[in-house]
């Protein structure tokens, strides 16, 4: 048998739901069937991916119980072969899968998204954060700052349930609150501060401001848009408050124009 055919057949066996005997496997000196010996690799593939999902989606598993999580994880693995060399990246579509499989528990999708995005922030790209001192020295030098950039790990996503509280309870091993829909959807920001992933909910004006920074708008243009969308607010004062908080949170990149 040619190498290409052998590797195709071996891989097909591993991805198939059930193992079977294969005539391209040599007889075992210990009398073990070829089906049994392939099943060692067949099981190992599933166990590794399931362990990876459990590690990445730890809070989701705690919320829905590890037993239910594992049932869903093994079913997901059958439908989604791994395509990324880095096993830690496996599970990108798992939150969507949970949404589809648990239609009456939509908060589970949101908790799973939290788990996934926090994990991505953990080893996302590095970037030096802008400090208050650096910003002051730029201003003192008379340089014109027209654009602020976010550090690359910043991402936003919307929640319609009290998923943030549920995730927090799972993280601190305290009583999980009952899932309820929020009066208004909230936006959650996830990023990495130094070496630790962080998250917090944003007000509507901060959501808009961060979205505008993400889209590359200049500070001048950002303030104009906020003025139009939030006519009752003093935008200069609000932007000043946001800037102080962003510096403290380290979400602004020191690479500024």
């Amino acid at each position: 048998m040619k190498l290409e055919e052998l590797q195709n057949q071996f891989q097909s066996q591993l991805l198939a739901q059930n193992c079977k005997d294969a005539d391209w496997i040599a007889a075992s000196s210990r009398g073990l069937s070829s089906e049994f010996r392939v099943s060692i690799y067949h099981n190992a593939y599933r166990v590794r991916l399931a362990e990876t999902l459990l590690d990445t989606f730890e809070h989701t598993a705690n919320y829905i119980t590890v037993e239910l999580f594992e049932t869903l994880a093994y079913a997901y693995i059958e439908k989604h072969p791994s395509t990324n060399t880095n096993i830690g990246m496996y599970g990108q579509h798992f939150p969507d899968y949970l949404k589809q499989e648990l239609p009456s528990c939509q908060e589970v999708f949101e908790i799973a998204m939290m788990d996934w995005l926090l994990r991505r922030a953990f080893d996302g790209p590095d970037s030096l954060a802008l400090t208050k001192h650096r910003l002051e020295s730029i201003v003192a030098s008379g340089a014109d700052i027209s654009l602020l950039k976010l550090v690359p790990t910043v991402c936003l996503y919307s929640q319609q349930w009290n998923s943030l509280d549920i995730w927090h309870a799972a993280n601190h091993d305290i009583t999980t609150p009952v899932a309820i829909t929020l009066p208004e959807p909230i936006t959650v920001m996830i990023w990495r501060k130094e070496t630790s992933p962080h998250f917090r909910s944003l007000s509507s004006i901060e959501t808009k401001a961060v979205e505008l920074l993400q889209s590359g708008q200049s500070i001048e243009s950002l303030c104009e848009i906020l003025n139009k969308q939030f006519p009752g607010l003093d935008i200069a004062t609000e932007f000043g408050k946001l800037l102080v908080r962003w510096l403290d949170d380290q979400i602004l990149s020191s690479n500024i124009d």
Partner: protein
Amino acid sequence: MFSFGLGLRTQHYHDFLNTQQPVDWLEILSDNYMVDGGKPLMMLDKIRELYPMVMHGVSLSIGSVNGIDNSYLKKLKALEQRVQPMWVSDHLCWSGVHGRKMHDLLPLPYTQEALKVLTRNIHQVQDALQRPLVLENVSSYLEFESSEMYEWEFLSALCRSTGCKLLLDINNIYVSAFNHGFSACDYMQGVPAESIAQFHLAGHQNNGDHLIDTHDHPVCDGVWELYRKAVKHFGFVPTMIERDDNIPPLEDLLSELNIARSIASEEINQRTAS
């Protein structure tokens, strides 16, 4: 030269940073640091300042008939430039074809055709890294009808055709010898001594009629005995304990490493005396 190392695991980061530990080098799992940034790379850089390192990967898939994944090779090269390791190793195996990743060290048939594929792939990696690649023998649970030679003959031919080096995993020889009924001594006699760059020692799971390479147990007596024979046959080779699961406190692994030191010392002294 005597040198002994351990695999760097996250559980022991602070032990290695806070106190200079009695190891000559650390082996990192390359794949764990082929990320964009964050804590893994920060800790790697800090620990690298204190200890020499070697790199050990699991996803090169050197035996894939489809060839080497260029984006993976590029990341490996970038990490190699960052770490400046003493050597770079991966496994003699394949891990998937046609874009699928099996995340396993799948065995190869020992054929002339596989030898050609491996030779092509190894040359590509060595050209990129500008250094010999070190390849580890894997534990296996099946063999192929199409094989034309023994594993050790295949390894020898590969060393001749590419100049690659070998990381002999003593536990893997023990596991595969048990599973396939060959002699571990024949294996060691059959590989080229001048190509051996490193030994691995690890634990496995005994299931009665087959052994599984789990790296979650201490090294067993049978593997220590085989290590003694390996040192007697090859002389001293840089040696490390590899533990990937059920990770114990660092002091337990250091105690296990001291057993390797004692065995190597006894055997080398005997060689010198005779």
